[in-house]
């Protein structure tokens, strides 16, 4: 298979990703050369101890941060070459984000938070409303559309974040420790919901975690250690 075909057939292809941070003039390597391929529809966990480079890696493959070296293709497009508007628009259209906490704008209602990306995309009002309600139903929060996020529990807020990430139907959902601020039962519930949605929609999910309970639910577990891949297992 040619490189080009390989890049297009996969959601993510990274080649020798390296990322150094500059800390008081000293180069600190956070990611030290990662080659990884993620296929469409995967449900993959990136695990590893704190400081192993999970966040850095996720930021680089989503264009939130630049790589010091290496290349990232996302849906066959060379992401590491994009910048400015092009990169913003690419993220808007192809990647859904879920963060550890404070995902939502507190002064916007659940509906306004969820519809935001569609607003950026120029989807008309009626369609936005329809899709917001549809996705909120999916995550079990259709009655909370008019609530402000601070009025919701942590688990509910993360479900709204999932709804926001998925509502514009991107092909990739990235979640950096989405359960870190939840108790393990709620976290497990959230993961089950994500897995369910992954199965139903075929969207690719990549999430980082260092929680065993969460890890167990992943179909593929990629282990990072000191900025390198130390293990990559796919369950049968």
């Amino acid at each position: 298979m040619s490189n080009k075909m390989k890049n297009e057939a996969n959601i993510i292809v990274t080649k020798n990703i390296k990322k150094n941070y500059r800390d008081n003039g000293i180069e600190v390597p956070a990611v030290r050369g990662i080659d990884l391929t993620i296929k469409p529809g995967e449900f993959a966990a990136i695990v590893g101890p704190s400081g192993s480079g999970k966040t850095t890696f996720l930021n680089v493959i989503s264009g939130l941060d630049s790589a010091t070296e290496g290349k990232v293709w996302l849906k066959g497009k060379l992401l590491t070459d994009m910048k400015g508007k092009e990169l913003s628009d690419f993220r808007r259209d192809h990647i859904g984000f879920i963060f550890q906490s404070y995902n939502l704008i507190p002064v916007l209602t659940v509906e306004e938070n969820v519809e935001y990306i569609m607003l950026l995309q120029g989807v008309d009002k009626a369609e936005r409303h329809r899709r917001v309600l549809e996705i909120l139903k999916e995550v079990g929060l259709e009655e909370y559309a008019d609530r402000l996020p601070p009025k919701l529990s942590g688990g509910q807020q993360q479900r709204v974040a999932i709804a926001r990430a998925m509502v514009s139907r991107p092909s990739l959902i990235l979640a950096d420790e989405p359960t870190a601020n939840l108790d393990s039962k709620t976290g497990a519930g959230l993961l089950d919901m994500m897995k369910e949605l992954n199965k139903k929609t075929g969207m690719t999910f990549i999430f980082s975690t260092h929680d065993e309970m969460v890890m167990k639910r992943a179909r593929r577990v990629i282990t990072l250690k000191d900025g390198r891949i130390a293990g990559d297992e796919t369950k049968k």
Partner: protein
Amino acid sequence: MWFYIKLAWRNIFRNKRRTLIAGIAIAIGLASLILSDAFMIGMENNIVKSATASFLGEAQIHGDGFRETQEVEITVRNFDEVITKLNQEEIVDKFTPRTLSFGMVTSPADVSSVLLVGVAPETEIHLSQIDEAVNRGSYFTGDDNHDIIIGSKLAEILEVSLGDRLVVTVAQAETGDLSQELFRISGIYHFNMKEMDSGMAFIRLEKAQQMLGIGSRVHEIAIKFKDKTYAVQEELPFWETYSQGGNEAVSWTKLLPQLKAFFDMTGISLFVMCLILASVVVFGIINTLFMSLYERMFEFGVLRAVGTRAAGVRKLVIFEAGALGIVSIILGVILGFVSTLLFTKTGIDYRGIEFAGTTIKDMLYPEMNVLQFIIYPIGVFIFMLIVGLYPAFVAGRMSIADALRKSL
């Protein structure tokens, strides 16, 4: 666009206290601009009124050259025709003819040179305030042609009082022969303005014309407009119309150029005040905007991560500055209105103070107008948007990854 406006509006109320403090600071600046402007207008009107209403009039018509030479021969040309025209003039409220000549006033005790003014008592009352200023005797009651009204200072110098006799000597037109008459003091006025109280004397117009030998001609027609602003409109056709056939029509701005210059300067000082106020509040506002930007860094990071372009967050920050501006403007307009209104009731007492060659005679009241409540608020709003540019630029340039590592 609307979304960012909505978001900005909600955002500034997240920290109500900070918004209120910044808003009040800007509001005080705005209110003081409105109040100062109102006071400047009030002061201008006050001074112009002091200058024009006591004697000068808002405009005057003379024969060409009279103002420069004060020669008795130079009278208003085509007097009857001018009067007929003035009577039909839409913008003219009142006018009165005068003779003006230098003369000697002699009492048993002393002698003094004065500006002898011949007035038509019935129309003069609308133009000057001699009638109101007479505090002993009366202002041309009856029809005694030998009545003379003098100022209180002159009475002191000449050591005369009401009812005393004075000899007035003037030089006649053309011949220069001296003409002398005996007058009886029928009124003494007090203006609290030195030149007027010591250097002028008023007699009836016909008597003056007879003494000067100028027939029924006059030296000056003093004019009051229906609206005082006509006097400062240089492009008014009025000036052209009455500056023909050997006459010249001039407004008080030409008669008292030092006043005009002074008012032009107050305009500049108001502008300077704007600049000073702006530079004082600008750091406070920038600080407020940065504080609210930095404490929400993570949030901006999320907005950028999910696909907001840099321009989007720049817009949001500028709109937040604008929203803060609107809150400030509402507060400032209320504050400006109330404080100006308060001073409109109480006024400020500058009476007796000399200013650019005239003495302030009335209480000083600020004058409100609609423009103050349009121009200054719009100015503040635009100023806020400009001030918002810098934090907006910083917000657009931030590193998303760094922002997302904040406050976790």
